[in-house]
């Protein structure tokens, strides 16, 4: 039985987040529900302060350790992702501020659910067995169900919530069913045990393969990979925009973190056999996302499809299966965070009067607010992978890793080739957004005022996106450390 101190050494941040969530509920109760704005502001400030505090704490006092406990571990990989999730949460809370006025109620509970989701996400980066994996995943998914349907007055929001619940439930069923098969074949539920069992086998029995495939596909739901990508466009469009941002970055990263654990640690050397499956999924996902994005006219749907396309890239890196590719995924996620958060914040600002995120809203944005136009330019070009923006370095790292892996697995050359074609396709649709921003006449000529705090957040995203494209060594180093700890986590038997 692990001691409390041991558990805290791994899950300290999660306890912090949980305690913060409880505190918010209590504060909300004490400050009373009579007033409309007061408590929500207090709660939001507390949430922001608490998450920032935890983020700072994680940078200053938390250190990765090589110790692997039965219930999980805090290696460099987990720490990297915990920080990532905290940053995502912070951005989500920041994005909520300019959006909040649209909520009909539950303004104090909203941050509580965001914190609980974050708790689940952070937990997922450390988990060491399938049971806690499932618990963490459900914590994330169920909180997100609620957040998605947070605007009961908006039919689209409810629709999004229902779709999310149904497809999420199907994916969870796949996952549990898969876990059952894995347990049946290996007799273990912890990653180390499963991994040891797999390595002791000469060939994988069909049942195990089937089980792993189900787990893989079930996790693909979070990542937005084919075939569980279908929820993305509708849910992204219907959910409140801060939640969409949270989904697009946090939920995707939750899928990434689990898939990486699974592929690199659990499968270990056996992953080579799975490169074909992952590569195939990557190819289909790339095609679906990129070709789907071309015809979109709604900004949030559009970013949904673009997110699917990015999932394709991440799968390509997973298929490459090397330390370099793991490191490239870690790097990629951070660049994706800044670009996406900036884009969603711009959407919140431009659609604040009509609550509709049709692409016409950004027409002529350059006339109405050159700054917002520039932010969107940076964000779109970074997503497209154009220098001098961080997305370029991220794509470059993935392609580099994939080309290296292709030396041993020539089939990857084809997928790299496809992904390069898709880079050009994606540049087309990102430029189509910029075309509206810069070349079209605005429908509403009025100057778009933005608040100082919004400006500050956007500026931070822009500076980070450009800075990471030029001085990317520090982040590459820490991504390398994360990848190393992931690869180096040698499977230990019972």
């Amino acid at each position: 039985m692990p001691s409390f101190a041991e558990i805290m050494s791994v899950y300290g941040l999660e306890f912090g987040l949980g305690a913060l969530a409880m505190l918010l509920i209590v504060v909300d109760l004490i400050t009373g529900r009579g007033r409309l704005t007061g408590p929500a502001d207090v709660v939001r400030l507390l949430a922001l302060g608490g998450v920032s505090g935890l983020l700072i704490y994680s940078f200053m006092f938390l250190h990765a350790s090589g110790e692997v406990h039965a219930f999980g571990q805090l290696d460099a990989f987990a720490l990297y992702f915990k920080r990532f999730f905290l940053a995502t949460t912070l951005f989500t809370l920041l994005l909520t501020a300019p959006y909040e006025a649209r909520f009909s109620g539950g303004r104090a509970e909203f941050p509580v659910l965001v914190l609980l989701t974050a708790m689940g996400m952070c937990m997922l980066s450390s988990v060491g067995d399938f049971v806690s994996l499932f618990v963490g995943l459900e914590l994330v998914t169920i909180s997100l169900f609620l957040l998605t349907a947070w605007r009961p007055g908006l039919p689209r929001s409810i629709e999004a919530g229902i779709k999310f619940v149904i497809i999420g439930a199907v994916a969870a069923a796949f996952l549990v069913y898969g876990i059952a098969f894995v347990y049946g074949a290996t007799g273990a539920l912890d990653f180390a045990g499963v991994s040891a069992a797999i390595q002791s086998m000469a060939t994988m029995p069909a049942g195990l393969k089937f089980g792993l495939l189900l787990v893989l596909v079930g996790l693909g739901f979070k990542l937005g990979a084919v075939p569980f990508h279908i929820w993305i466009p509708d849910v992204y469009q219907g959910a409140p925009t801060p939640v969409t941002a949270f989904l697009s970055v946090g939920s995707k990263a939750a899928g990434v973190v689990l898939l990486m654990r699974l592929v690199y640690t659990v499968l270990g050397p056996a992953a080579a056999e799975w490169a074909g499956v992952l590569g195939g999924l990557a190819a289909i996902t790339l095609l679906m996302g990129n070709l789907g994005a071309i015809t979109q006219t709604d900004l949030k749907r559009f970013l949904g499809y673009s997110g699917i396309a990015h999932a394709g890239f991440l799968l390509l890196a997973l298929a490459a299966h090397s330390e370099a590719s793991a490191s490239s995924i870690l790097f990629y996620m951070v660049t994706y965070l800044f670009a996406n958060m900036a884009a969603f914040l711009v959407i919140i600002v431009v659609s604040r009067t009509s609550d509709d995120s049709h692409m016409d809203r950004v027409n002529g944005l350059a006339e109405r607010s050159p700054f917002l136009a520039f932010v969107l330019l940076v964000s779109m070009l970074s997503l497209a992978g154009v220098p001098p923006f961080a997305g370029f370095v991220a794509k470059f790292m993935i392609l580099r890793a994939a080309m290296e892996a292709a030396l041993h697995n020539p089939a990857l050359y084809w997928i790299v080739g496809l992904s390069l074609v898709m880079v050009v396709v994606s540049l087309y649709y990102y430029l189509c957004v910029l075309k509206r921003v810069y070349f079209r006449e605005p429908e509403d000529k009025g100057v778009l005022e933005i608040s100082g705090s919004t400006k500050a957040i956007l500026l931070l995203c822009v500076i980070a996106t450009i800075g990471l494209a030029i001085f990317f060594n520090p982040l590459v180093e820490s991504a390398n450390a994360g990848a190393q700890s992931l690869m180096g986590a040698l499977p230990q038997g019972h």
Partner: protein
Amino acid sequence: MLQDNLLSLFILVPAVATLGCFLIPAASPRLVKQLSVGASLLTAVLGVWLFASYDQAAAGYQFMQKIDWVPSLGISYQVGVDGISVAMVLLTCIVYLAGALVSCAVPKRQKDFFILLNALVAGVFGVFVSLDLFFFYFFYELAVVPMYLLIGYWGSANREYASMKLTLYLTAGAVVALFGLLGVYFSGITDTPTFDLVAIQAAVDAGGGLSENLQYFWFPFLLIGFAAIAPMWPLHTWSPGGHAAAPSAASMMHAGVLMKLGSYAIIRIAMPLMPEGAVMWLPLVAILCCFNILYGGLVALNQKDLKFVIGYSSSSHMGYVLLGVASLTTFGLTGAVFLMFAHGVMTALAFSLIGFFYDQTHTRMLDDLGGLMRKIPFVGVCFVMMAMASLGLPGFANFASELMVIVGSWERYPIPTMIALFGLVIGATYLLRAVRAVFLGDMDPKWEKLQDARTPFQRAPFLLLLGVLIFFGCFPWFMTDMIKTGVEPIISSLHVAEQNLIDLDAQKGM
């Protein structure tokens, strides 16, 4: 101190100017213009200094600077120039200066225009001085993408289509090249993969290059990828439309400098790293470039829009450059690089002149214009001189360089060379036709109000460009001696490669 950082300054000055323009409020466009012209003037001074202080006797890469950037990925920031890059840097300085001066007439959103222009120039300089494949590619893409907004926002007819086509075409070329670059990177030339061009080059020179088969496989990726921007027929279709739609300064940068990136990349990366591949594939280029010359020339003959005439003439002239590149002789390749320089200056002059009167006439249709010489004699005379330079009149740099290309490639490719000679006749025809249609003949009374370039400030860019053309036309050896120092090692390695291939064939025959 300055010596060590000189090349980085070429990137930093326009980059800082970009940042500066960004920080200056849009309400004071004057300051933006002053800053940008100042930056271009500064790079021009640096460019002349670089040209003067490059040690031709020592040759090789000079003014080297290396900073380990991301050791775990084999990326280092490394810059250095040889004779070829010095010529290209000087070209960029000249076109940047002229372009910045001309752009002061941009009518709207000057701030954004100069931000993009400066960013683009930083990218171009970066390509010409980088000796690391990662940064080379980084700057290459950086130079391509600002063009989208420059053309799309400030451009003329059909701008949205043209800008999208251009950007996608060039990016498609770039990703093909990237595939090739990564292929070469991982092909095991160096013990640990590195993007350091100098290290890879050293390994190749020491006999550690790729096998013939691999070179045969990888060379086309680099060739096609970079030839898209060169632009080699049949990948040229983005170029005339792009030139025509672009605003003056963008056309100048574009036809003057950007198009040279393609041939430069072939000369700098593809040929030295895969000499055998070059020997095997370049004859194909010699054939395709005939299409450039003839097709470009013949199409230019039938254009109604003056910018399209110059646009197609550019793709025709680039055919000569490619012929020189394919010639595999010191003389021919030197001529090709010299022609890149001369054509860059000439075509920048052409687009700046066209832009000057287009701003007033709002038409470039040959049928609508005519007799403008009476109203704008200064611009007219400059245009005639530009046409003379372009059609290869002795005394202009274009003549000397085209002659070198033709002499250099005669021995290896007699038929393409004859076609190229015939192309000169076509060139003379469409240029004289354009001069007649625009400046001679009867003038439509609606052009009575045209203003000539009167102030020294307006005249400066034209005089600068024309002066450079005449100077290097009369004293070509200033340029050719410089270029030759960079060309010689490449050609000698190609000759070795050619001999290797012959030996290999002989072995197979036995």
